[in-house]
């Protein structure tokens, strides 16, 4: 199960709506081994595409170096689908390289840039196997 706080959830949804019709992407970092998505990092989609996303290679290195310095890892890796359902595509599965992460998919196909509900779903993707999991949105992450 993915447990995520309301503010981070809302920020991911807002990012997806803002970048529609292009795919939005980013991560939520958290302390290594904690499974706590604490620090949202919106990334630029270097592909700038409605059907593809990729972190810029320079941004990617900067992001990981910052996480290493903070003893963090990517707890959530998110991106949006803008015309299809919030389910990992074959490409998403083939390129999923963080076996410990929750892969969050948001679909903006229904309301685009406008207000309205979105599909927000989470998956584990390990060795090409996709397992959907429950998403629990809480007012705040529990105290440690």
């Amino acid at each position: 199960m993915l447990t995520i706080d309301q503010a981070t959830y809302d920020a991911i949804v807002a990012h997806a709506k803002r970048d529609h019709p292009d795919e939005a992407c980013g991560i939520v970092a958290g302390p290594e081994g904690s499974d706590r998505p604490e620090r949202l990092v919106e990334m630029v989609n270097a592909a700038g595409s409605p059907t593809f996303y990729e972190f810029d290679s320079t941004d990617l290195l900067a992001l990981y170096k910052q996480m290493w310095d903070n003893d963090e890892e990517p707890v959530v890796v998110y991106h949006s689908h803008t015309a299809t359902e919030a389910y990992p595509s074959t490409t998403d599965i083939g390129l999923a390289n963080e076996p410990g992460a929750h892969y969050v998919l948001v679909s903006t196909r229904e309301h685009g840039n406008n207000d309205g509900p979105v599909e927000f779903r989470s998956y584990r993707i390990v060795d090409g196997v996709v397992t959907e999991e429950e998403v629990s949105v809480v007012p705040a992450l529990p105290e440690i």
Partner: protein
Amino acid sequence: MAIEVRIPTILRTYTDGEKAVDGSGATLSALIDDLESNHPGIKDRLVEDKAGTPELRRFVNVYINDEDVRFIGSLDAELSDGDQVVVLPAVAGGAR
């Protein structure tokens, strides 16, 4: 000649869980061959054969001292003692 190579989570199965390993080589290509001799299988995750020529896989990023090797010669990029190499899989995907 020791070059520190930072290994991403997904490839640590080849390094007994080590986050970083030492290697040697005057070019990235030679370094990867050296890694392969100590960590069999890792080369295939980094390099693919394109019409008889080895190339860095499209969705693998390698950096030498923070520089993306694609801008400094890719597999032919030169290395020297003390260089820091980072391997990071692309974070990418898409609707298709």
